[in-house]
């Protein structure tokens, strides 16, 4: 699988999101070291609420799967529920810091509730 070449940055660039590339093809039920960081990413952009115990595990669980499907759906990606190369490429792409979706319970994110689509 090919991912965008800017993941091969030189050492002094601290581009944290490029580490998400190592989750490529991780599937539901697996536990991958560092996946909690990816969960924080999905929380930041409105896809995954903070769990009751207030911290994220490294486990690819049902909540993470739902958030992943929501992310794929919202950003026009193939809805596979998998960390496929298209989804990973989107996740590690630089982006705007505003949230994409629903109100989440840390009360610091802008909410988006009305989505309109146009049929031609």
């Amino acid at each position, binding site marked *: 699988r090919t991912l965008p070449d800017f993941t091969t940055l030189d050492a002094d*660039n*601290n581009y944290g999101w490029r580490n998400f590339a190592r989750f490529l093809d991780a599937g539901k039920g697996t536990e991958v070291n560092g996946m909690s960081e990816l969960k924080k990413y999905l929380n930041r952009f409105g896809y995954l609420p903070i769990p009751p115990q207030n911290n994220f595990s490294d486990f690819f669980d049902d909540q993470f799967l739902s958030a992943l499907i929501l992310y794929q759906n919202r*950003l026009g990606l193939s809805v596979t529920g998998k960390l496929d190369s298209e989804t990973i490429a989107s996740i590690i792409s630089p982006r705007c810091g505003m949230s994409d979706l629903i*109100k989440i319970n840390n009360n610091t994110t802008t909410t988006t*509730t009305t989505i*309109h689509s146009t049929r031609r």
Partner: protein
Amino acid sequence: YAFFNGQPRWIRSSTLTYALSPDYTIEYLTPSEIRKVIRRSFSRWSAVIPLNFTESSDYESSDIRIGFFRGDHGDGEAFDGVLGVLAHAFSPENGRLHLDAAERWAVDFEKEKSKVAVDLESVVTHEIGHVLGLAHSTVKESVMYPSLSPRGKKVDLRIDDVEGIQVLYGTNPNFKLKSFLESEKSIDSG
């Protein structure tokens, strides 16, 4: 297209002022290069809605305040260094538009060769959409789609952006949908 909760928009005036922060800026682009890009970005939105934007030198009292900030800059949404989050802005009538000073911003990819260079005009045009009341779009071609690849450029508003912003502000009387759609078609074929 999508809106923020309650569809907030600017109602105070049909002309909004904007200014660049004199203190929070970057050194490797000249102020005039930055101002030219920002002026062009605002003009793309004012071409489709009956709203004008006037540049001001008085940052504090401007409606829209633009600056380059690094790391934790006091609004609860810290920037994260190279790539990652590039910028953010706030919904109406807040007016703040923040760009991550850690990025390698470019106004001309012929001159700027960095692999992680980010097009300033594309990001400013996107963030102005937020300042005016648009949230992120699901349409990949739209300016309001949340991500932008390094050395990528996305400055032309698409019909999704135009339809959304015109729901909030109405249509600029000089805007011609037919010619807009023709220009969009030529962008697509390009």
